[in-house]
């Protein structure tokens, strides 16, 4: 009896401690980035390109623009493919080809981002003889598609089959059921999936190193080298100048804030979906 009790309390302690540790790790990271980063934040940081080398001041507006453009274009390229693949798999549940597609999406998700980067370099940068933000977007789209496909599929599976059957009973065509019933019902869930996928690719560095190249100038042309927050953090953190190393912390703070906001938005939407279902 005492041995069982001991085991019980030991395991209970381990489980609780691990849960606590999880919170602590996040808290330490966020707190450290906040403390190190927030001190150097000011208006210029968000609105100006980097100051000429060796001069103080300047900001990371170039990288903020880059992160938004590269992520949005990646999402724009990846959303239709990911969503359609997800719809296909959900609509053909149990079929052999659908299973293969799902398996491939899972495999694609597991490919390390550095490999995606090399892929982007070989097939886009080397092929077109130029580093560009667009090649970065395409590389990130490869990471965006599988997550989006899986999320879309899972959310569509949550749509009650009774709802779809009712639509069919009313004589609706399949395209109409998919579009007006399944997707409309699951819209919030799919959007939340898209946001989570965007949060995931916004923080990627490895694919950008090989494709986007980085730039100290504010760049709007997707066919040119462009900076992004993770890339700028990487470059600043390895610079000899303490001022730039401090800016790396501030940029890290901005990036983490952005990603947490995206994920918070996604969670919020998920919560709404679940409420609607209940």
């Amino acid at each position: 009896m005492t041995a069982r009790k001991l085991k019980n309390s030991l395991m209970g302690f381990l489980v609780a401690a691990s849960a606590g540790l999880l919170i602590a790790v996040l808290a330490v990271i966020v707190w450290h980035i906040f403390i190190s980063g927030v001190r150097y934040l000011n208006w210029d940081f968000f609105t100006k390109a980097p100051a000429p080398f060796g001069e103080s001041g300047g900001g990371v507006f170039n990288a903020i623009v880059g992160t938004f453009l590269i992520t949005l274009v990646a999402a724009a390229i990846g959303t239709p493919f990911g969503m359609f693949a997800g719809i296909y798999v959900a609509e053909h549940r149990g079929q052999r080809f659908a299973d293969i597609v799902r398996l491939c999406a899972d495999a694609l998700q597991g490919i390390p981002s550095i490999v995606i980067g090399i892929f982007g370099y070989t097939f886009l940068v080397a092929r077109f003889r130029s580093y560009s933000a667009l090649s970065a977007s395409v590389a990130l789209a490869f990471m965006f598609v599988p997550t989006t496909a899986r999320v879309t599929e899972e959310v569509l599976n949550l749509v009650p089959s009774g709802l779809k059957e009712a639509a069919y009973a009313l004589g609706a065509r399949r395209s109409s059921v998919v579009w007006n019933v399944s997707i409309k019902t699951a819209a919030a869930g799919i959007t939340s999936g898209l946001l989570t996928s965007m949060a995931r690719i916004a923080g990627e560095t490895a694919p950008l190193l090989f494709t986007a190249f980085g730039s100290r100038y504010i760049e709007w042309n997707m066919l040119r080298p462009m900076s992004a927050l993770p890339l700028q953090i990487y470059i600043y953190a390895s610079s000899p100048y303490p001022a730039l190393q401090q800016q790396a912390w501030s940029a890290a703070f901005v990036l983490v804030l952005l990603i947490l906001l995206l994920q918070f938005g996604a969670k919020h939407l998920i919560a709404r979906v679940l409420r609607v279902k209940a």
Partner: protein
Amino acid sequence: MRHIEHIAISVLILGLLIGTSGCRTAPGAPVKDLAIAGSTFAEPLYVKQLDAWYEKTQVKGVYGALSSSAALRALQDRTIDIGATDLLLSTEEQARLPASVLAIPTCLGAVAVCVNLPGNPALRMDAALVSAVFRGDVKTWNDARITALNPMLKLPDSPVVVIHRADGSGTSGIFTTYLAAADQTWREKVGAGQLVAWPAGVGVKGNAAMAAMVRQTSGSIGYLEYTFAVQSTLTCVALRNRSGAFITPSIDSMKAAVPADLTADLQGTLLNRPGATSYPIVSLTWLVCYRDQAYDGRSRERAVAVHDVISWLLGDGQALAEPLQYGSLPDAVRTAARDILAQLTWQGKSVK
């Protein structure tokens, strides 16, 4: 279903359009951007110079601090306009490139050997001692070989922590080439290269990480680009040069290492030069571009942009070197560099 098909087809067509429109500017159009990549050794200087060039011409010279060896790869793939390397291309490296290239020196740099010891003593070392330390042969700071060269200093009996670069690095290339040239044991046991099998110590990636590691680790010794040593206020070791003088790195001691009779093709090393005031680990750093710029259908305007930016780096851009602790090119080297740049062509005709 037709909806979906329409969207899918439009996305495909859009993708193809963007893809095939090409990323290079059309002939006649002004060139607004140049991609330059390579050396981390000279990154601060190039970035500063390209910033000034942007102010002047609105041409965005984008610098990617990849590494000297990555510059070679990118040049081979023709994904950049100009590569930056700390070591002159070997004959095999040249042979791997699809066409003949020009290597143009842009500034002088030094590799500093830095230590972190209590009281920041002004340590003296010769090549044999540096070699012994980096081979892990010298275990403590009060080793007889160190005290023999530093009789005036009181050194602790704490262990020597060797820090070296773990990535392929031009800085390592310069440092190990110097040691291999100046010390036979190093030549036989370790050799020279951007990436060597280090017999001892802890590996770090990049000059900045090296500076941070030496700063944080008491009793450590490492080697890094001089600018990084200055910015991190590290204590540099005075090294014995070939004439027997102990010299610390500085802009003057870098320049003193450049012989007056450096040949026009700039071959010949600046390592371990004789002279009362020359620092022994000095190197030129180079920009590399294809001799004929008309490859891959590149426009004449792009060739001119490449020529103009390098020409400016050799001219007014030189003034920016010394505030960042790089040596500006001595006049003889600068003239030689201009002669090399004059060989830049587009479809066989001189660019300028």
